[in-house]
């Protein structure tokens, strides 16, 4: 009964405001890096450019040890449809081509490069924003642009929706709802015109009229900068100010918050006429088209209470995590946990010898590594209130604990976006997301076996 009352109270509010149902309010900790300008990182002594920055098959290395390579040179070739090429971020010499661990612990081939100080650069010919959409799309593919918000879906594929799915709204995601991270925030303040030029290119490729830049209301400076820049584009463009609520940057939540359209189960944004691109991706598209530069550098927030000088760095892709930490004057005190990405959806990494990928928006070094003892579900329902996808994490996790994977499937575990709100809200400190991931892995394995 009490839950029904809660719904009646909250539903009219979310229908008017730019937000969604559910979500949590973690502590944001953004102040340590949000007001200081990004800094270009000095060349590290060694780079390890991984061949897997994206979903799908890793790229195929094209260089051999001993090769002299230049900035922007193609070093990894895309394999298959859902794949993207990889380019060298520096001039230098290839030391080795050997497997390096990714943040998930998978060993993937990587090109180890010893950088040299040189300005030689292989750039692609500059294109104007008024070029043919097919040419623009091909350029985005060649430049190896992937979704830089997290999943790393190749942008070329995302920007070629099938003909029967008309797109009418382009949403540029500047929500950056993850605590600690400010790389998108700084990009919007430092290069709003670049982002808007990227928006213009995407708008041309997709042929959409409506463009909305979605920014949470805790970044007033970014809202002001983007409003000024986007208004110059003309047409139906604007900034949508979202409530500050995690996970406002999630694709499904953001589409609902901006357009009030709900994505169907198992569907894609194009099913509701939307495409969502991250602000950093938009910037990378601008660089690829207007400057002919492939995606080789990105902004990354190196922060946390165990870092001496937290900062946003513009670092070459393939930089080792220990070099990133060194560039921020190293660590102080006890280092309890290193997280690639934000604290809600990021992955704790086991060592600092992992290299930065195209999707790395943050590196978090925390002093605390709390050891939780998880307990039995107390059926309080807080995870159900927190879940932005209206799932029942409590039920799913209990199914998984009882090895009832079919039960978890019936509770729609595969719809989960792993945002972590449930585990954040759980007073019994149950590893809900891990249970869900385990169920998903088992369901995928079962489906693969059925196909055979």
């Amino acid at each position: 009964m009490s839950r029904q009352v809660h719904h009646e109270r909250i539903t009219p509010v979310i229908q008017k405001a730019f937000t969604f149902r559910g979500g949590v309010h973690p502590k944001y900790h953004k102040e340590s890096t949000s007001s200081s300008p990004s800094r270009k990182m000095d060349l590290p002594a060694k780079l390890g450019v991984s061949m897997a920055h994206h979903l799908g098959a890793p790229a195929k290395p094209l260089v051999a040890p001993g090769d002299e390579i230049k900035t922007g040179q193609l070093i990894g070739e895309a394999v298959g449809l859902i794949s993207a090429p990889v380019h060298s971020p520096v001039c230098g010499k290839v030391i080795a081509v050997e497997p390096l661990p990714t943040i998930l612990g998978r060993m993937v081939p990587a090109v180890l490069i010893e950088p040299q100080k040189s300005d030689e650069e292989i750039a692609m010919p500059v294109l104007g924003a008024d070029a043919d959409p097919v040419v623009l799309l091909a350029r985005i593919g060649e430049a190896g642009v992937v979704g830089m918000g997290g999943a790393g879906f190749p942008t070329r594929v995302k920007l070629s929706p099938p003909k029967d799915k008309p797109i009418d709204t382009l949403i540029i995601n500047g929500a950056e709802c993850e605590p600690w991270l400010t790389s998108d925030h700084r990009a919007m303040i430092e290069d709003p015109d670049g982002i808007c030029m990227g928006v213009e290119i995407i708008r041309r490729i997709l042929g959409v009229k409506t463009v909305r830049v979605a920014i949470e209301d805790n970044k007033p400076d970014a809202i002001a900068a983007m409003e000024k820049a986007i208004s110059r584009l003309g047409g139906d463009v604007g900034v949508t100010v979202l409530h500050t609520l995690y996970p406002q940057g999630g694709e499904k939540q953001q589409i609902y918050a901006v357009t009030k359209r709900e994505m169907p189960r198992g569907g894609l944004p194009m099913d509701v006429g939307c495409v969502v691109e991250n602000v950093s991706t938009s910037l990378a598209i601008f660089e690829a088209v207007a400057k002919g530069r492939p995606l080789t550098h990105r902004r990354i927030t190196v922060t946390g209470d165990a870092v001496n000088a937290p900062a946003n760095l513009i670092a070459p892709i393939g930089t080792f995590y220990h070099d990133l930490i060194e560039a921020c004057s190293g660590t102080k005190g006890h280092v309890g946990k290193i997280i690639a990405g934000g604290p809600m959806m990021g992955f704790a990494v086991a060592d600092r010898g992992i290299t930065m990928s195209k999707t790395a928006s943050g590196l978090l070094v925390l002093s605390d590594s709390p050891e939780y003892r998880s307990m039995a579900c107390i059926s309080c329902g807080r995870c159900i209130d927190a879940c932005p996808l209206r799932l029942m994490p409590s039920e799913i996790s209990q199914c998984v604990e009882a090895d009832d994977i079919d039960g978890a499937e019936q509770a729609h575990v595969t719809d989960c976006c792993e945002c972590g709100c449930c585990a954040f809200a759980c007073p019994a400190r149950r590893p809900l997301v891990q249970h869900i991931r385990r169920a998903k892995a088992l369901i995928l394995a079962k489906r693969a076996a059925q196909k055979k």
Partner: protein
Amino acid sequence: MDTSFIIVSTCWIAGLGLLSGIVLAVAAKYLTVEEDPRIAQVAELLPGVNCGGCGLAGCMDYARGIVLKGMPPNLCAPGGAECVKRICAFMGVAAEISEPKTARVLCGGSTKTAKRKFLYNGIADCAAAAATAGGDKGCPYGCLGYGSCARVCPVNAIRVVDGLAVVDKARCISCGKCVGVCPRKIIKIVPSAETLHVLCSSKDKGPQVKHYCSVGCIGCRICTKFAGEAIVMEGFLALRDYTKQPPNDEAAAKCPGKCITKG
């Protein structure tokens, strides 16, 4: 007091009971499903642990398989030679008696000998641990020690001692359930009579192995000199070939990595 309702209801219940009894008796006579009586008898001869090691759903299913589909009677690992002999005698068929087998975890890296990369604080399941940054064990091939194999074992033959799964040879019925559940695929079904085993599955080079484990195979090949063809090298890992017999157990004492054991 009127007691007639007691008598009436008693009569009703008794009458219903009688009627149901007659219906059931008639049904048992005319609707009975004829099943080969040998199925129940063969099921009696099987050990009845329902482990599924034969590949069927349980002992009753296997008995049906033997009687109706003519499956070989030597698939039951828990029953052993005695069981095969009895079924052969009962069914009047001949079958080769396979040698007794036991499961073996081919890893020796306990918490004392192998390093851990990080503190794993998630759910106690090997597959879940392996999916977290590749598992907390320093060795990417070794036993994770969260006991997924112990939980599926129908006879409680596996215990996790110091972060390492150990099979109790006396209890193991070699059903193979643990083999399928291990995410590292390091449990093998081996002949029980064999005494020489290589307890390492790391394919890494020697210096790397030394980095994370003090009882790992470093690929030095010394064992191959003593064990004849019973130990073969595959890359940097010594592999015990159970189809061949070693001349003696000398290799165990000579192994500098201390990963070859006797017994």
